[in-house]
């Protein structure tokens, strides 16, 4: 895209204040017609706030500065007005209703009508058209809950198209997608560019931004740092990171020399059935973990990695069929989560907001939540010990919060993740299972989390990392298992692991003997 394309959108010195906080100060953004414009910045840099100002979530008058859209000053007082102008935002948390069909969702709030009643015939026909446009091959009557998250994302985009979109805003569109689905989505965005649709994309995945965007605006601490022209300025990932964190990050992973001991945890012939259907989600899976070792689990979305982890962690997923768990040479029975915690297991879930934390709690209550017995004396909780434990972890993990009385809902993703880690470190586990430990977390915080994981391993604990980001697994893990459709299809050492070798085994049931 040439820089002389007409300007579609210009946001001028946008300042937005919340009580006590300046979320945006004097932010400028220029988006040209027909380009893909990426917005980068660490969590809390103000990306989402800026998009909320643009889409009218924060109505005109609650911020200062001007928005010029299609050559005219825009004063949106709600989302409906911005949508009417062709600005559609797709949020990170998908706004779809699980029990409605694809068609119903696509036209929710925007139903084609005939004499006051919804015209389902027209809706069906248009739904099919739109689905073809985004490359979604499904029956339009399928319920949203029955399709995968990748396809749900496509439904969201089709929904935006149903509103006659001119400027499409995507907030972390690939955060929940696996590599293949992400790739499909990025191809789709390129296709839209050909059709002249302008996109704004917020993402933490710098490789994607580098691959797809025409220009990049970087925010830091609520201010515009710079706007880069990708082709003209020769931008690469390191260049973006430098802008985001304001310094050079020499490496994405901290230096680490593993101190690996003997095998202490072993799961063998593990079979688990889906909670409702008869399908096996874990088929005869066997794996081992050594002391001081970081073991990765690679696989596509839906391969059954989370299911494996949760079923091992006190049978908290699915219906147990058969299998043995041996820890320190002895077979153990983990029938409940309490058993698993008692035997030194910890599971940090992939969805910290939905199932990892009680968002009503503050930091200290969350920190001690999984092992209250440690701060209880004859059944009575000690407030002092609770405070001291939480404070110690806050300092150790460098959680950014004024005090441990702060509610966890007010923390950024990275700091919430640190609280969850603290919660499980507090249980003194021997084996930590971390499911997508850096999802939705910015570059700086990721580096810190990697450091924490390595320190835990160095203390002689075993760590299992489940991740959809292959570079993360390759950079962090001493050994990686690949999982495909509920089976372990391969085992690669650090030396053998590269994106190609992993991808090959993540997509095939053929067990390759690489060791």
């Amino acid at each position, binding site marked *: 895209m040439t820089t002389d394309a007409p300007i579609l959108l210009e946001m001028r010195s946008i300042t937005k204040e*919340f*009580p006590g906080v300046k979320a945006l100060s004097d932010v400028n953004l220029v988006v040209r017609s027909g380009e893909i414009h990426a917005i980068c910045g660490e969590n809390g840099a103000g990306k989402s706030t800026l998009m909320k100002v643009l889409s009218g979530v924060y109505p005109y008058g609650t911020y200062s500065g001007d928005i010029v859209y299609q050559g005219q000053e825009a004063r949106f007082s709600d989302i409906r007005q911005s949508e009417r102008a062709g600005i559609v935002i797709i949020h990170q948390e998908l706004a779809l209703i699980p029990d409605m069909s694809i068609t119903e969702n696509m036209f929710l709030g925007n139903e084609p009508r005939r004499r006051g009643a919804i015209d389902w015939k027209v809706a069906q026909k248009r739904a099919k058209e739109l689905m073809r446009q985004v490359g979604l091959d499904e029956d339009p009557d399928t319920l949203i809950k029955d399709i995968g998250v990748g396809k749900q994302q496509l439904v969201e985009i089709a929904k935006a198209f149903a509103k006659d979109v001119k400027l499409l805003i995507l907030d972390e569109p690939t955060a929940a997608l696996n590599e293949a689905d992400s790739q499909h989505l990025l191809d789709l965005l390129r296709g839209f560019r050909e059709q002249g649709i302008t996109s704004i994309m917020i993402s933490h995945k710098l490789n994607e931004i580098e691959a797809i965007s025409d220009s990049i605006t970087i925010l830091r601490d609520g201010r515009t740092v710079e706007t880069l022209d990708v082709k003209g300025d020769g931008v690469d990932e390191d260049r973006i990171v430098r802008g985001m964190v304001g310094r050079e990050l020499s490496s994405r992973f901290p230096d680490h020399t593993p101190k690996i001991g003997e095998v202490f945890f072993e799961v063998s012939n593990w079979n688990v059935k889906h909670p409702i259907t008869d399908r096996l989600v874990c088929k005869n899976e066997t794996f081992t973990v050594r002391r001081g070792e970081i073991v990765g689990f690679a696989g596509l979305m839906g391969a059954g990695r989370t299911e494996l982890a949760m079923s091992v*962690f*006190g049978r*908290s997923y699915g219906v147990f069929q058969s299998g043995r768990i041996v820890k320190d040479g002895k077979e153990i029975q983990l029938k*409940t*989560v*309490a058993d*698993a*915690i008692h035997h030194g297991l910890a*599971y940090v*879930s992939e969805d910290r907001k*939905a*199932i*990892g*934390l*009680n*968002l*009503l*709690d*503050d930091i*200290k*209550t969350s920190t001690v*939540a*999984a*092992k*209250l*017995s440690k701060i*209880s004396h004859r*059944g*009575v*909780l000690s*407030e*002092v010990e609770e*405070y*001291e434990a*939480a*404070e110690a972890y806050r300092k150790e993990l460098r959680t950014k919060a004024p*005090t*441990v*009385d702060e509610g966890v809902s007010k923390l950024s993703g990275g700091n919430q993740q640190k609280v969850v880690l603290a*919660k499980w470190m507090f249980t003194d586990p021997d084996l930590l299972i971390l499911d997508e430990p850096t999802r939705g977390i910015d570059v700086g915080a990721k580096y810190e989390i990697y450091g924490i994981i390595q320190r835990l391993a160095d203390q002689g604990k075993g760590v299992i990392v489940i991740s959809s980001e292959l570079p993360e697994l390759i950079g962090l893990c001493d050994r990686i298992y690949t999982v495909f459709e509920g089976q372990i299809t391969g085992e690669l050492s650090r030396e053998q692991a590269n994106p190609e070798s992993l991808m090959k085994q993540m997509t095939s049931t053929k067990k390759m003997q690489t060791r």
Partner: protein
Amino acid sequence: MSRFKELQKNLFGGTTSNARQFGMIFTLVAIVLLFQLLTANNIGVGFGDGLTLRSDNLIALLQQNSYILILAIGMLMVIVAGHIDLSVGSVAAFTGILVAKSMAEWDFPWPVAILFGLAIGAVIGAWQGFWVAYVGVPAFIVTLAGMLLFRGANQFVGNANTIPVPEGFQDIGAGFLPEWGPDTGYNNSTLLLGLIACVAVVWREWSARRTRIEMSADPAPLWVSGIRVAIMLAVLIFVTLRFAGGRVGTSFPVSGLILVVLVLLYSFYTRNTAGGRYIYAVGGNSRAAELSGVKLKRVNFFVMMNMSVLASLAGMIFVARSAASGPQDGLNWELDAIAAVFIGGAAVSGGIGTISGSIVGGLVMAVLNNGLQLLGVGTDRVSIIKGLVLLLAVALDVYNKSQGRFSIIGSLTRPFRKDTPPAPGATGSNPEPAKTTVGG
């Protein structure tokens, strides 16, 4: 000015302190004073001679509402866990009739009858808890069924008749503390209780300060602590003298004492034990709680069972006070108890709420009811006013929260936050340790 700010900040909590923070306690005090004034005007006497704060009225007020407040304790825990219990009135009535019958026809001595009543509550609670926790039927449905079931059972057992209860039993609902010692012109038992409460308040403030220092956080300035304790002591002494200074033979009621003990016990349980914290964890995010090793079913079973035991106790206290058990006992109690809990700041979605908040909420409703009756307002209009108060109280709280402003009720519902205003013993008759500054 800075001194005043410091006082404002530390006396009733946080930096955003303003009149709202007095919250429900302030509302309660205001309502009491308002009715004191109105009743005095109504009969043409001075403010001090108003009917509301007269000894006999305060005693009656507590006796008439102790059973609702006992229900509110259990209901708070049910609601915090994310459930609801509609059956409490019927359970109370069913227990009442069985207990009355056990004494009248099967010659149970009254202490045995009380144990029998609690056992009935436990069995009913186990029944309802089973369906809620282990089968997974929503509590709304289980207890709606229970409401019909046990109302019918009451009328089936009692043939829709009234059964009287003996005098010994009546003491738990209508009895007073004994008279002893020198003639002080007051009831000495009540004076002793008041003294214990005063000592408890001072000790509590002192230990809270010590805890703060231990956490290496700054305690409130000493003079602020002094003022806070002074206010609480003044209220306590006033209320003690009122309850002790009624007609000869009256005192702080036995049912009130039962209530106070339960409030202390359950407040301690919900705030300072792992079991109590599990209830909040389950209500706040049940999946997260489960993955933290909390036994979900056990917690749900416990709160439902506990509620029915307390409902049985409330039923027996009511029967004791009215000297007989009848087919209409406990009608609409569930609604009063639920209203108390929500006025007291609990969240409909669960996870938020405190016992003391619910008690204050219940007292607001009780004082309103009592005051309007003293003024001769008919029950029709009383009901309309109570409905509006419930709606407005919760709406105000929701509004304040959505504006990101300091929430009155929110402040009451954060037991461990240092920004928590003290709850000076509710009416003061209640020597519950105030929620003083304990946080970190």
